[in-house]
């Protein structure tokens, strides 16, 4: 490196931010997480809307079918619900919750 280049480099060094800047990194990650959260909310909102509209459209067809099978499915549905509640209450499902990352 020539002396002129060294001089330029020394002057340019004034522009350099610190090698570690937790505030900057935290701001980036915060904006990233917020953006992902908004995207997830938009996706869930869209899916819910589509599901609601589909259910509304199919309800005239679904309702008679559900009434027809509900008598036979009711005991099984109760048993499944009780089993699910028992497992959840004993903590079996709690361990599956993600720690930091999704």
């Amino acid at each position, binding site marked *: 490196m020539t002396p*002129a280049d060294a001089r*330029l480099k020394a*002057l*340019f060094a004034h522009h350099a931010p610190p090698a570690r800047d937790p505030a*900057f990194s935290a701001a*980036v990650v915060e904006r990233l997480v917020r953006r992902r959260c908004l995207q997830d909310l938009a996706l869930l909102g869209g899916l819910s809307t589509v599901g609601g509209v589909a259910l509304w459209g199919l309800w005239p067809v679904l309702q008679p079918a559900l009434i027809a099978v509900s008598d036979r499915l009711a005991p099984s549905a109760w048993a499944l619900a009780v089993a699910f509640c028992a497992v959840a209450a004993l903590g079996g499902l709690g361990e599956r919750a993600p720690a*930091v*990352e999704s």
Partner: protein
Amino acid sequence: MNMEGLDESLVAAAQAGSTQAFSRLVERHQQAVRAFLRRACGDWALADDLAQETFLAAWPRIGRLKAGASVRAWLCGIAYRKHLTSRRSAARSRTRDAAYEAERIVPAAGALDDRLTLETAMAELPTDQRACVALCLAADFSHAEAADALELPLGTVKSHVARGRARLLIALGVPDDAC
């Protein structure tokens, strides 16, 4: 593990969806990206905003980063394109800025130190020349690495660096010892 190896493992983890790995990449490369943008656009606050935008834009694109590619050059490439977009959108307010600059009290030439002279000389360079100078002279990028980051031909980068360097040295009154 060397720096490139650490980058590769962090990139692989980020590509698998790890935000923690991506935040490590932000920590490791924020200095290079922010310094490049400060030199390229001259406005430090804007440069830091653009640096944040750069990392936010990098996250969804990280899957496209090839194995073994330089993360620093890739990020600086995104930063450069953010800078160009910002310049285009700021064109409308340039008239207002020019009026402000005209009213601003400019210190006497003798009071300007070398850093201000350098900043003024950098501001007068064309955008792409300035980016080449910022990468190759200030940040130790190779010409090939800068050409890759800025998506410019290698010969163009070399000539931009040579011309930019000459103009900066003239502005600073430093004899060009490479001639």
